[in-house]
């Protein structure tokens, strides 16, 4: 009976494990009580499940070896052809012409892959991106991702882009540089560059080296207000809520001005 539960339906056929059994009428009659049992069990499961609060799942992505292999095995040339669709918003060289749209040039493969998967499963909400992600096959996603990962973070200056933006005021840049380098131990805020580069990266975390300021600010505010909640195990929702309004603005200006291209504390951040 258990083996019949574990069976996978074949294409265009009924769910039967053993075809010889399925072909004889007697065994189908024998299967009726089994089916009834299954239905009762499923019904009681639904009742039990509705009693407790449903699990809040931030994202269906896990960083298993298979997923990482699938995300990093794309063909960048095919991706470059597919990415023609993305040029209008994300720029021909991965640098977008609008500050509220993310730059994708040089972004880590796994981070774009995860965001596309989350758009596809509607765990991250975006009116333009959800239908686009739904229309891509897993291979398309891997290809596009490997194309953007290969683009250089130093683009053609004549390209139509907004990055890098205005240099922030010295005081605000210092606040941001401190958060980027050291975080704030008193409040338990880890330094940005220990996960978002260029010092270190966690798996699936986007690089912020060449990201638009407005986009960074929007995302921080959405994480703080929980309107974006696809971070696995709540890191960004926690950190964004711990940051003050001024600090979020300072960080956005800091990254938007291209100061994140070098580790903070080097001459670039002064």
């Amino acid at each position, binding site marked *: 009976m258990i083996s019949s539960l574990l069976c996978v339906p074949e294409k265009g056929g009924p769910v039967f494990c053993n075809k010889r059994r399925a072909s004889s009428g007697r065994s189908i009659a024998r299967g009726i009580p089994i089916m009834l049992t299954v239905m009762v069990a499923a019904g009681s499961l639904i009742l039990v499940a509705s009693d407790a609060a449903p*699990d809040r799942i931030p994202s269906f992505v896990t960083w298993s070896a298979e997923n990482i292999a699938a995300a990093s095995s794309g063909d960048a040339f095919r991706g470059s052809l597919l990415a023609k669709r993305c040029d209008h918003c994300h720029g021909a060289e991965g640098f977008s012409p609008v500050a509220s749209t993310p730059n994708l040039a040089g972004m880590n493969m796994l981070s774009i892959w995860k965001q596309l998967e989350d758009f596809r499963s509607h765990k991250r909400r975006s009116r333009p991106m959800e239908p686009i992600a739904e229309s891509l096959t897993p291979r398309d996603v891997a290809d596009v991702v490997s194309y953007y990962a290969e683009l250089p973070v130093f683009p053609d200056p004549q390209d139509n882009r907004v990055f890098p933006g205005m240099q922030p005021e010295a005081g605000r840049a210092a606040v941001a540089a401190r958060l980027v380098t*050291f*975080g704030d131990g008193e409040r*338990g805020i*880890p330094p940005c560059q220990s996960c978002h580069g260029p010092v*270190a990266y966690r798996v699936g975390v986007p690089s912020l080296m060449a990201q638009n300021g407005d986009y960074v600010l929007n995302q921080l505010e959405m994480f703080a207000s929980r309107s974006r909640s696809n971070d696995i*195990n*709540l*890191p960004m929702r926690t950190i964004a809520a711990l940051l003050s309004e001024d600090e979020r603005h300072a960080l956005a200006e800091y990254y938007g001005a291209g100061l994140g291209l070098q580790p903070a504390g080097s001459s670039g951040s002064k």
Partner: protein
Amino acid sequence: MNWRKIRIFVFTLLALCLIPATRYYQIDEPLLKLLRGSNHVDPLSLHLSGEFVENNLGTEQDADGSVTVRMIAQQYLFVPHCILVPAGVPVHLKITSADAVHSLTLNGTNYAVKTLPGTISLAELQFPHAGDYKTVCREFCGAGHYAMRSEFKVVPRDQFPALRAGERGACVLQ
């Protein structure tokens, strides 16, 4: 019989026995559990199912008046970041790691709960007085290790809100 060789052998054996004896505090419960394969959780899919899904983290009121606290340690945060618990009540702490080895230490004490990916560490705590108990990570876990801190906000027992079933006490937005 070469008594000299036997003597050297016996003393070497005794010296080898001393190594785990002096470092007994490092052969701790979660490590043994990990080696035995019991108390297993998949560190990669904590967010998908099981008791460490995000709406199950934090303080849970048990029937006997004690509370259960579930936490995840990850690079470089303890989640939830701030935990509300009542004073003078047994706290059953269940903590696991999503990535590296971490160690939850209460400031001002030498008490630490080591957390390993793949196993649930259990600890029994009881906070005698109300107040803020800061915690830090004591196991070097990466570039942001030194900023990996959180706190237990301990409130008097009568001020601890009566939690309904499925509700998690937290002093931060959860």
